[in-house]
């Protein structure tokens, strides 16, 4: 009877998890035109996986030097970069506003502000407390500069697409896939099989002749990998994945604690249940 109860509970739990996960996975997107999505094994996947800090730092460099020319990170402040689990976290600076790397990065951006003395508009170097300043003054300017297409915000991009990490990674690499006759691109459009409909207003960005640069080493004694297209794509995805889900490490460690706690609690309750119901058994 006891075994049956445990078995039934396990079956019920298994079915619930499996059916809900099935629903979640079934809603994932597919890609047309014979392009095979590359499914990379990401550093943060799995029950205990977390982001690779060096990869995030390199990814930030790719963002700052390539993506930043059109795309903003709407929901990120510079201080977030120095948060625990973030790309430039340093345990010596629990307050990210004190982190010199973060301060330097913030200072590289110009932030529009108001002169408190006369109310006029001024431009000043950023501080860690600032949000990433928008690339364009407004959507009209963004559309005008980019042939009518507004470059989307990247701070939640990896969460805003099905299998977002693989999506962004493949989007960066899929430009050289042969264009089928069924997809007709007009001027200012490029073919990319990863994009829904195959047409994208963004040209290939991570090409060896366009976006190549040497990775700078932020930490001493670090040997940055060669900046191949694949490497840059993987690194920028690592950074954007963190940007979309910055609490991942905190969440997973809380999850582990909760699961262990619940497991022990379930065990104790099961023993209590057995003991209480045993009162009903005939005394022999």
């Amino acid at each position, binding site marked *: *009877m006891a075994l049956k*109860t445990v078995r*039934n*509970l396990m079956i*019920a*739990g298994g079915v*619930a*998890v499996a059916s*809900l*996960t099935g*629903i*979640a*996975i*079934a*809603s994932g997107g597919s890609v047309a035109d014979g392009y095979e999505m590359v499914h990379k094994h990401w550093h943060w996947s799995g*029950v205990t996986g977390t982001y690779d800090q060096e990869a995030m730092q390199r990814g930030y460099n790719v963002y700052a030097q390539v993506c930043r020319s059109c795309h903003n990170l*709407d*929901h990120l402040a510079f201080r*977030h970069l120095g948060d625990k689990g973030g790309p430039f976290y340093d345990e010596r600076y629990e307050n990210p506003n004190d982190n010199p790397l973060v301060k330097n990065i913030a200072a590289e951006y110009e932030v529009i502000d108001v002169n408190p003395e006369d109310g006029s508009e001024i431009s000043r170097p950023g501080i860690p407390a600032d949000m990433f300043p928008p690339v364009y003054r407004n959507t009209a300017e963004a559309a005008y500069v980019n042939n009518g297409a507004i470059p*989307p*915000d990247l*701070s*939640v991009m990896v*969460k*805003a*697409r*099905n299998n*977002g990490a693989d999506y962004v990674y493949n989007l960066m690499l899929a430009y050289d896939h042969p264009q089928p006759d069924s997809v007709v691109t007009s001027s200012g459009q490029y073919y990319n099989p990863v994009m*829904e409909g195959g047409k994208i207003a963004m040209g290939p960005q991570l090409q060896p002749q366009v976006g190549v640069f040497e990775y700078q080493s932020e930490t001493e004694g670090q040997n940055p990998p060669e900046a191949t297209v694949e490497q840059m794509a993987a690194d920028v995805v690592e950074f954007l994945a963190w940007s*979309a889900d*910055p*609490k991942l490490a*905190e*969440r*997973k460690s*809380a*999850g*582990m604690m*909760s*699961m262990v706690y*619940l*497991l022990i*609690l*379930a065990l104790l*309750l*099961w023993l*209590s*249940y057995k003991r*209480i*119901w045993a*009162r*009903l*058994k*005939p*005394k022999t």
Partner: protein
Amino acid sequence: MSGHSTYEPKWAAARWMDQRLPIVRMGADFMTMPTPRNLNYWWTFGGILMLCLIVQIASGVILGMHYVAHVDYAFDSVQRIRRDVPYGWLMQSTHAVGASMFFLAVYMHIFRALYYGSYKAPREVLWILGCLIYLVMMATAFLGYTLPWGQMSFWGATVITGFFGAVPVVGESLQQWLLGGYAVDNATLNRFYSLHYLLPFVIAALSGLHIWALHVTGSNNPIGVSDKVKTDTLPFHPYFTVKDMLAVTVFLMIFAFFLFYLPDALGHADNLIKADPLKTPPHIVPEWYFLPFYAILRAVPDKLAGILLMVGAIAVLFVLPWLDTSRVRSMRFRPIARWFFFIFIFMCFILGWCGAETPDDNAFLGLSFYRLSQIATIYYFGYFLVILPILGLVENPEERPASITQSILDHGDKPKPEAVQAPAE
């Protein structure tokens, strides 16, 4: 059964209170309520649902302190909750995953009631209150899904409120009245937030009535034979409190699995794109718990007919106690009905699948999802309107045990009846 109260106030103060507001007596009576001893784990979802409601209200009240109901700030404020509010990521995920868990539990609870005939006399009012709770839950979930103001929020709200426009004559004015304008906009978001905050308390009130009704009729049980002798029941505490707590903990493990490891898996990626009234997403799909009804809605080409069918799919539940003509409650003793029930469950999953896919796509063997959803819709209504009414008249039920105690005796692994007198607590 409610029976008569065995509560005896021990102190003068307790006696004083008992003569004025017997609230302690009520709690004590809840704890000693005679409960059928043969309840299985399908009966634990009531307690699980109570927890779900508490979790949703508690996390929701906290989210409400940080959320901004304005079209320009709603999306950003949710991101801010996830990033900057201390443990906001936990509150937001709990509330979002919690909605799915609430529906998962409520579906288990409803299927339990359908299988064991818990809607039959004398529990019709208990059942109807449950249907009302489910209806208000659906409204609450829909309103809540609008609040993050992502693409699915906006377009889901546009599609659903569009149904009201299909009502003859008054449709258009009704739709405008609901939206507070000609389209989903700031006025819509504000009233949806207001109602989303109100309805959970309506659910709480209805749940109170639901539990009250339960305590009048007592719980149904897996054999569907009402308890007759004292050995048929056990006091609710400690026998069922400990069993419910075990089930709640196992349920919480499933909850925690999604909450901590797949927090966004049950939602749509599109809802992390800020709402854009000028850009329709390629596939507008509701949350998983609405998919079967969405499939029924799209099973007919006419918009109004689709809406009537969808409303009918819920309405039919309200009259179910009078549609099922069988006097046997539990499907354990209904050899034919049981199989129709399992097909019904299967069809609900088929409808869910159809709701998630594009109607014109091929499901299997050249059968489009559109046709498949029509087949499943016909079965859904056929089960309630044809199969249950007729089957109750023609089916030969198996022999039922005379009592719960007898049914336990028939299974050798259970305690003997002379020993099953519950020790007093």
